[in-house]
């Protein structure tokens, strides 16, 4: 009886699958997205509308959730109310959901030739335990965005080494400006500074080992990173009261010319331009070498789409992911007037944008050390939160370093 039932069900299932694969997609496709900032939101809405138009029998239902709120809510909806497609981040940030079985294994998609070839460079960031759990849709460089006009006025060049970097900063300070704007209220911006100083001081492998918990926070090499950081802090390189601002609230300092540069991801370009900075006012340079023996490495965070394992319409979801990573769509959504970031598909073209060209060149030819995701994506969540809080404290009270490092070390012993 049981076996009979099983067979019948099996036949039904295979028939169902066969027809579904041929038939046009139908039902609804529920997408939860964290692309809530104005430009990304427009991109997401457009992608949803376009996909909806391509499949007349399919209704695409898009919910855009505030980017910060999304980070906590994903846990709830993945288990309680799973959509068919959801945004997230690459690397270790996927780990909790992969281990809990909440993300669908989509290695099959990665075996399809179009994806396997065109997305090869990002495969590593999407792989955990030898399987792929999502697809990337964009990535972006980090680096120093600066006021070209201010540099010109002071006769400064883009720095190629640490000494020039500091000398430039001193000149900027002498002119009555701050070297760098930053808003550390939500902590991760300080993580960016730590990443760069650490990767320039100790290299990419050290970054990975540290975020994997293999190195003590009281290690002398870590202390060297902080010592370099402290040089900048003691100079007064950063704006005051940065602990009270979000990254957006720190933008006006640069727009008004009160600060000359911003270490940020490329997503900062759009609001800076919108606020009125023209092409001759805004430029980009790669964070310079500190320790000449260390190969340059970059942070280039990858944002992703995933299929929750509880999704109802996985067939449509897979089709949507194919659509997202397709060469044409990648060119379109990453162009300067949309996301203004880098496409993940190697057959797409990078928009002819000053920043994107520089970023693309930097990541493809001048990052021999490796490409990291970001501090809070490479480190486990709990370690990241304690550490970034410590970074913020260090930036305000550098004298507390000893205490901060001991605290981080204690957290490391517990977390890993």
């Amino acid at each position, binding site marked *: 009886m049981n076996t009979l039932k099983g067979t019948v069900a099996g036949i039904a299932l295979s028939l169902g699958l066969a027809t579904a694969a041929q038939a046009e997609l139908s039902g609804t496709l529920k997408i939860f997205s964290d692309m809530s900032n104005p430009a990304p939101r427009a991109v997401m809405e457009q992608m949803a509308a376009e996909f909806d138009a391509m499949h007349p029998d399919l209704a695409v239902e898009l919910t855009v959730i505030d980017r910060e709120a999304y*980070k*906590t809510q994903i846990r709830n909806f993945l288990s309680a109310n799973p959509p068919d497609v959801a945004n997230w981040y690459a690397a270790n940030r996927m780990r*909790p959901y992969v*281990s*809990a079985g909440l993300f669908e294994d989509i290695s099959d998609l990665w075996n399809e030739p179009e994806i396997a070839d065109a997305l090869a460079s990002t495969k590593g960031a999407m792989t955990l335990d030898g399987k792929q759990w999502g697809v990337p849709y964009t990535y972006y460089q980090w680096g120093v965005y600066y006021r070209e006009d201010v540099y010109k006025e002071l006769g400064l060049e883009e720095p190629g080494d640490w000494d020039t970097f500091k000398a430039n900063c001193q000149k900027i300070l002498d002119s009555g400006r701050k070297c760098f704007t930053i808003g550390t209220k*939500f902590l991760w911006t300080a993580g960016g500074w730590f990443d760069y100083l650490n990767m320039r001081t100790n290299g990419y492998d050290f970054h990975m080992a540290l975020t994997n918990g293999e190195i003590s926070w009281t290690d002398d090499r870590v202390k060297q990173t902080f010592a370099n950081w402290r040089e900048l802090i003691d100079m007064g390189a950063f704006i005051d009261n940065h*602990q*009270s601002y979000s990254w957006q609230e720190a933008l006006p300092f640069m727009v008004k010319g009160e600060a000359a540069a911003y270490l940020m991801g490329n997503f900062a370009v759009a609001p800076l331009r919108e606020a009125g900075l023209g092409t001759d006012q805004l430029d980009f340079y790669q964070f310079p070498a500190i320790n000449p023996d260390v190969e340059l490495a970059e942070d280039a965070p990858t944002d992703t789409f995933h299929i929750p394992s509880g999704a109802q319409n996985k067939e449509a979801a897979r089709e949507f992911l194919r659509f997202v990573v397709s060469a044409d769509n990648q060119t379109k959504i990453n162009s300067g007037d949309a996301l203004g970031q880098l496409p993940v598909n190697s057959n797409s073209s990078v928009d002819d944008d000053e920043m994107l060209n520089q970023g693309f060149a930097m990541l493809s030819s001048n990052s021999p050390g490796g490409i990291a995701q970001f501090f809070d994506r490479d480190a486990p969540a*709990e370690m990241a939160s304690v550490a970034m809080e*410590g970074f913020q404290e260090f930036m305000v009270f550098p004298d507390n370093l000893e205490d901060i490092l001991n605290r981080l070390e204690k957290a490391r012993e517990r977390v890993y």
Partner: protein
Amino acid sequence: MAQMRLAPGNGSTPDPTSHRGPQDSWLRRNRQTLAPLLFLAPGVIFFLFYVIFPILQSFNLSFYRWDGLGEPQFIGMENYRELLDDRAFEVSLWNNLKWLLLYLLAIPAGLFIALFLNQTVTGIRLYKSLFFFPFVISQVVVGLVFSWFYDPTFGLLNQVLGWVGLGPLNVLGDPTLVTYGIIAAGLWPQTAYCMILYLTGLNAVDPEQVEAARLDGAKGAKMLWYVIIPQLRPATFVAFVVTIIGALRSFDLISIMTNGGPFGSSRVLSFYMFEKALSEYGFRMGYGAAIAVVLFLIMLCFIAYFLWSMYQDDKGGR
């Protein structure tokens, strides 16, 4: 009473001729027991389900390690042991104490404003309402309003401090000031609340006693202390209860104004618990539950005191 005449209906008038089954008379005999049971059932069930059982569950959960996704793992007292050694917890506890003590300032401040406004001049009713206004606004909005008030670049506070040659101050960015800054924001609606309690209380003050005291030569502070305040006892009790509860529940303001920062210096237990259990980097449900249990135990001291006072009052009643 018009309602009274409506009341007697068919079923319930004593009527020896009507046919009643034995069941019905059992119902009648026991209706003094059954009625309260039926009236209570929905409320009590709801309350047990959503309030009482969850408290027990939280106690239980505090002995587990659980990330909210997989299977909870029993670890005994491990969460509590970790708490003892957790600096963030210590900071939160101290901040809670600051909240408890300083929040009580709302009571004298409320009394002060109430005394100030307890006059009969034209338009005073409207003034009273407008003074009360902050209490009606959600704490989220109060938090936003005050974070702009404190803003280091354009905040009104620094503007005012500048006029008198002080500042600038970054209240919410300074770990020593931040908690006081948030408490000040919280005191704003809370003072309004206490004010309204006292205004009503002052209405009920016995004018004859005041006159008698006046004839005895009491006035000003003396009168306030020996005659008025004792009569305001009920208002003070309610003000005390709501202020303590408010202090221990402080979550909205912290979440809106600083998100616990800078570097965790404005956390209190209620916020730290949320952070550990449900925030971006959190999802340590068991650990969060342990924090909640500590907070609950602190609150329990006050709850016990309130209940005891109410019990004392109640004995006097029917």
